[in-house]
């Protein structure tokens, strides 16, 4: 059986790999708990390495750490577009988003009853960066200092309008620095070799969140108990048991009432369920196709008319059908659930005749191309191979012969990252819910280069990307990112395909179930 492979494609496994915006989400009101002693069991196909926020960057870990640790700011329910206070009651952005000032909530207490201070915040964030782990890039280049016990200032050399969207990531969770230091923690520059607290943090928690860690196993279950000293509204469930259960089984567990929530079902797997609440929505995981723009790699795929032909030949609707109810065609590389996404009216259109005409203009006769894709990973239950088979069938109909070249993630990544693949089928999961995470698709950027697309190939787009990065203000950012994507769709070697569906299934007894793109399901507001 194929596993969901954590960490295998990096971005795939990144924190926000799964996003759910619950349809018709109710307003988030923390229900006062009249029912202490209740246990909530969540079925999850574990992608879990650690509970230490400084190292954690996997979906299951996000869920756990969201329960255990507070961050400066956070998201509520399933809304990833609105940043709300957590430890920081308020914050201001200065100097064109190069400087942020956060004011801490004086009421905040760690689970041992000690107050959360600015020193703890600075120590925790510095530690996270200096550990040089998977999440370190989140705050790379940020200078973090305390101004008095209740104020934290973060400054960076470049404008960082995305910072408020980055900080909700539980990897930036604030630790009880005294406690963690006592167990080998350090925030020094050489923390990556000197810090030994991870093991302890996998058995204990040192945070201020609504729950404390009771037991932790990366393969069986994680049990969290209500934090008796929690400074916010008491959570509805006194125990949360996160169990590692294979995706296909989860639905039945919930249907039987054995467990309350399932978070990994594919749309197909929810078809036969009854008597449960099912929340379906597009995830922010984007599958895309690219054709290498570098003629030295392939004279076929670098042909702009060929690229257009491919874009027109793909039957997006059938791909969406394959991915199941709740998945959508993605109009641009930025998923529809984020700021700056294109409207669905901008979807690429399928037309065999257009494709054939474009192919004719390319001057290529019966072109043949190898399509590379990773095999040992799935995203929301979707195999790359299944999509690739569909793409192969679609392109065949316009006269393009596609040879499928399945490779292990390890091997495929090597050629992909080296920009050596002629045609590739890949996926991008967001690292944080902000469109700036998608500038990597620009010419000369990380993913652009993998498609052999250099700044010289599209200087105008490169400038636009830079402008997008520097723009601040919600409306202005929205329009510049949309412009960026439209150009990308017209001139780029990328064909955004679909966003997979993310499904949360819960028993009817659970109130206010809201999926969350970062931490799977919003524990804090369950009723």
């Amino acid at each position, binding site marked *: 059986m194929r596993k969901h492979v954590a960490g295998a494609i990096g971005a795939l496994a990144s924190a926000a790999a799964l996003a759910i915006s619950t349809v018709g989400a109710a307003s988030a009101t923390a229900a006062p708990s009249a029912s202490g002693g209740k246990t909530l069991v969540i079925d999850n196909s574990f992608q879990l390495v650690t509970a230490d926020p400084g190292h954690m960057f996997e979906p299951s870990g996000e869920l756990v750490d969201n329960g255990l640790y507070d961050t400066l700011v956070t998201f509520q329910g399933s809304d990833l577009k609105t940043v709300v206070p957590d430890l920081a009651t308020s914050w201001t952005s200065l100097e064109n988003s190069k400087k942020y000032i956060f004011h801490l909530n004086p009421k905040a207490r760690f689970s041992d009853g000690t107050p959360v201070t600015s020193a703890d915040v600075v120590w925790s964030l510095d530690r996270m960066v200096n550990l040089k782990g998977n999440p370190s*890039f989140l705050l790379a280049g940020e200078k973090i200092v305390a101004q008095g016990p209740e104020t934290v200032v973060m400054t960076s050399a470049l404008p960082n309008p995305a910072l408020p969207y980055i900080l909700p990531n539980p990897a930036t969770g604030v630790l009880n620095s005294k406690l963690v230091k006592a167990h080998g923690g350090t925030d020094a520059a050489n923390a990556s070799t000197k810090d030994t607290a991870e093991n302890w943090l996998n058995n204990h928690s040192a945070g201020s969140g609504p729950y404390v860690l009771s037991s932790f196993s990366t*393969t069986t279950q994680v049990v969290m108990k209500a934090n008796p000293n929690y400074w916010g509204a008491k959570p509805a469930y006194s125990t949360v048991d996160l169990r590692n*259960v294979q995706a296909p089984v989860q639905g039945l567990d919930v249907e039987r009432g054995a467990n309350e929530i399932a978070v990994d079902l594919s749309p197909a797997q929810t078809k036969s369920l009854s008597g449960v609440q099912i929340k379906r929505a597009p995830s922010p995981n984007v599958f895309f196709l690219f054709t290498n723009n570098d003629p030295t790699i392939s004279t076929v795929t670098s042909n702009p008319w060929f690229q257009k032909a491919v874009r027109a030949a793909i039957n997006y609707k059938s791909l969406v059908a394959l991915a199941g109810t709740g998945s959508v065609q993605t109009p641009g590389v930025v998923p529809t659930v984020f700021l700056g996404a294109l409207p669905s009216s901008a979807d690429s259109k399928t037309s065999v005749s257009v494709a054939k005409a474009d192919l004719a203009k390319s001057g290529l006769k019966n072109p043949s191309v190898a399509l590379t894709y990773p095999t040992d990973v799935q995203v929301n239950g979707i195999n790359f191979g299944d999509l690739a088979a569909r793409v192969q069938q679609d392109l065949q109909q316009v006269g393009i012969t596609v040879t499928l070249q399945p490779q292990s993630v390890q091997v495929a990544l090597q050629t992909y990252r080296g920009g050596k693949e002629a045609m590739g089928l890949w996926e991008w999961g967001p690292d944080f819910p902000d469109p700036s995470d998608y500038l990597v698709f620009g010419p000369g950027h990380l993913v652009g280069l993998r498609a052999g697309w250099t700044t010289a190939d599209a200087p105008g787009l490169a400038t636009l990307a830079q402008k997008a990065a520097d723009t601040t203000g919600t409306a202005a950012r929205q329009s510049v990112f949309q412009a960026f994507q439209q150009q990308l769709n017209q001139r780029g070697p990328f064909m955004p395909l679909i966003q997979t569906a993310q499904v949360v299934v819960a028993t009817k007894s659970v109130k206010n179930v809201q999926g969350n793109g970062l931490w799977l399901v919003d524990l804090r507001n369950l009723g």
Partner: protein
Amino acid sequence: MTCGTLANLAVINTSLRGRARRVTPAGLGRFLGRRIGIGLVLMVGITLVAFVLTHLVPGNPAAANLGQRALGDPAIVKAFNHEYGLDKPVVDQYVIYLGKLLHGNLGISEQSHRAVVTDLAEYVPATIELALFAIVISLVLGVGLGILAAVRRGKLVDGVIRVISLLGVSMPTFWVALLAFYLFFFRLGWFPSGGRLGPAVTPPGNITGLYTVDALLHGDWSLFASALDHLVLPGLVLGIYTVGTMVRFTRASVLEVINNDYVRAARVKGLSEWTVIRRHVVRPALLGIATVSGVAFGSLLSGTVLVENIFGWPGIGQYAYNSAINLDLPAIMGVSMVVAFIYIVVNLLVDILYSILDPRIELR
């Protein structure tokens, strides 16, 4: 698989005359010393094989274990490679590994960030529990059916058992697991879906690591029930192949024995058929069965990879699988060592058992 360990390691004493030749403490010491020596050499060989294998890898562990963004940062990659010693020459890496091994240190797992020893301590007992359950089931069923088939050889029963045993060794374990899962969990709801314990049940205090045994030791019956409930289905599925093997081996062994003069001699003495079978046939047949049990244990370990996968059993099979696809080198080496270790110990036990069962065999 063939089993040549006995032929190599236990020498049948053909001398007819002589004193009673029981195992002397000194002899046993020499035997154990030699076997442990061979075992150590074998283990080091295994580490070498595993090491070479894992370094053939075209991909690299950093890519397997770091995120895309982290990979983009050379400092992070460097820190990662430094942490796991991947920045050193390959030969040095191996020497360092062996050095640590001497101190019982198997390194840190790249996927779990924990000591491989800690991981193994968690997963090995789970697999042992599963495998022991399966082997007990298959011994009981397999030996029973095998004896029945041999005693009733040529009869219909024999034919039916023969086909059953062939079926047993012909069924793809993963498919049986799937069918069992579909039927007994999905359709009938007799067994839980997977894992080792029910929701919100905390594992018993760790004594042996086998939940059923530990629960009993703690006298916690509800815990025992939960652990057993979870153990039965994967255990049975895992045992199917072994039952087949056991039946065939038992039948052959019993037939070999049953035609012996000494069995006829026992009948001639007017002993009841049951006594003849029990005392005179089964015991020598057990010799062969002991051997095959050792081999079967090895094949059970193979089976666990597939069965654990389907039943979400957090054992060494899953760990091996995850380590392999994540190119978690220390973990792969650790798993290889443990598995080889189990193999060596089981074979040693089989040989010792053999010498207990057969007075003609001297441990050397």
